[in-house]
């Protein structure tokens, strides 16, 4: 399979303190596969993603090559990069509450985004119609009503799903999801993960999925990168990483997660029989 995104020798450092945050990382994303990046907070997962989108703050500098379909993103002008964001590379953020404009209803934000990316060749009601379909496909009932609400009136899970719906309409080549399920409760977490799996099936897009929850990663990812302190310590296919972790740090991550669910599974033995009957 060909690579849709290639990251070569990515290095990110802080200009003020000269601290290196990401040290010489290289990885590839294959077409229509899902790459997960796991690690504890502060390990540089989000910074890696933001440097792909070139959305890091001005105090952070990056070097290295990021090739998207053979085109180097790092040398593009800001104007051209803006055309790439959204349409080609779409980012789904962790915190739904702060990702939308709090001063206007959701619909305004959605229309603005779509009008920007599709050069206004869509009529107003066409945008509404497409958005409605996309929102229905992520299990949001009453899309019109939701579009007339402010972000604070909706729950975190709903906002997350609206972002996914927006991604469906934009049909990007790569979706970068930065901890999309961390802030959600159990039921909506499950639903959002289901939506991501559906999204991949439907559109065949590639995905970079960032999470610290190994359970979610195991469900969705094909390949895993384990990051620690800005370095990739282990990489490989999902099952191999989780069944036979080699690096000490991966072992530690897996064992702590297992400790949590082992206890639960013990209680739950025979649970499926009860649930089905």
């Amino acid at each position: 399979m060909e690579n849709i995104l290639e990251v070569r020798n990515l290095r990110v450092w802080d200009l003020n303190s000269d601290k290196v945050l990401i040290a010489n990382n290289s990885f590839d994303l294959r077409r229509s596969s899902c790459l997960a990046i796991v690690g504890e907070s502060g390990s540089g997962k989000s910074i890696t993603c933001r440097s792909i989108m070139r959305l890091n703050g001005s105090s952070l500098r990056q070097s290295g090559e990021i090739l998207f379909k053979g085109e180097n993103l790092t040398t593009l002008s800001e104007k051209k990069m803006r055309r790439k964001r959204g349409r080609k590379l779409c980012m789904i953020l962790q915190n739904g509450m702060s990702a939308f404009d709090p001063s206007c209803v959701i619909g305004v934000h959605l229309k603005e985004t779509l009008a920007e990316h599709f050069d206004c060749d869509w009529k107003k009601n066409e945008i509404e119609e497409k958005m409605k379909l996309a929102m229905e496909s992520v299990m949001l009932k009453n899309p019109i009503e939701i579009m007339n609400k402010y972000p604070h009136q909706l729950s975190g899970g709903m906002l997350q799903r609206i972002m996914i719906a927006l991604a469906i309409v934009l049909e990007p080549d790569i979706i970068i999801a930065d901890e999309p399920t961390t802030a959600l409760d159990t039921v909506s977490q499950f639903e959002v993960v289901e939506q991501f799996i559906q999204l991949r099936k439907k559109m065949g897009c590639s995905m970079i999925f960032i999470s610290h929850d190994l359970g979610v990663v195991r469900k969705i990812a094909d390949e895993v990168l384990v990051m620690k302190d800005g370095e990739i310590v282990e990489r490989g296919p999902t099952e191999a990483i989780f069944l036979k972790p080699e690096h000490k740090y991966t072992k530690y991550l897996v064992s702590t997660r297992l400790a949590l669910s082992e206890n639960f599974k013990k209680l739950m033995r025979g649970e499926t029989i009860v649930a089905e009957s």
Partner: protein
Amino acid sequence: MLKVKGVKKSYKKGGLFSTERQEVLKDVSFECENGVCLGIIGESGSGKSTLGRLMLGIEKPDHGSILFNGKEVENREVRLGNISAVFQDYKSSINPFFTVEEAIMEPLIIKNKNKKENQSKIDQLLYRVGLNPSYRNKYPHELSGGEAQRVGIARAISAEPTCLLLDEAISSLDISVQTQVLNLLKELKNIYNMSFIFITHDIQAAAYICDRVIIFKDGKIEEIVEIEQLKNVQSDYAKQLLQSLITF
């Protein structure tokens, strides 16, 4: 020990002059005995945090009563040194101008004015939560999430309360740190024999530490179940909750 009886709570909804009210808690009753770890599980917006605030006496219920050892929890004297809390947001729960030492000192000074005794107690508390005394002079922004939450726990147990309320105290931490904090809580429970009220949306974490869980939905108790019986839940919602869990 802690008795919640027929509690109702509603908040004003909408604009300044609106009379519409949203019911957050609808007739909630349960009991928590000494030394028991009680979990309250529910999705966001189900009213579990409101219930937590009522139990802490920060807010008053509209109807019903909350009794702590037979006395109204609204009364400050009843709460003093008996109920403590740890909240979710570790960044904002410690005064940014306070060092770790000052933060833990605050509740200690109310009970005991003797500075020397308190000083030695701080070392002991830090040791209990797995931090060494060098942390005393650090400021909150120098701590990682797990460390800040440990300081929060140290502060909460400094008054040696009989009841500790944890409102999503581990939800915003990394899974590996979550396990550490949960183990710490288990240890503390054995040392101090206190009862925990553990509010969370994470069933796995609740299953790790709790003796009994309350499954909470839309301001009502769906089910109260002993943790060993968790697989035999009756209500539809509880079943759905267990099914939608992503295990590892």
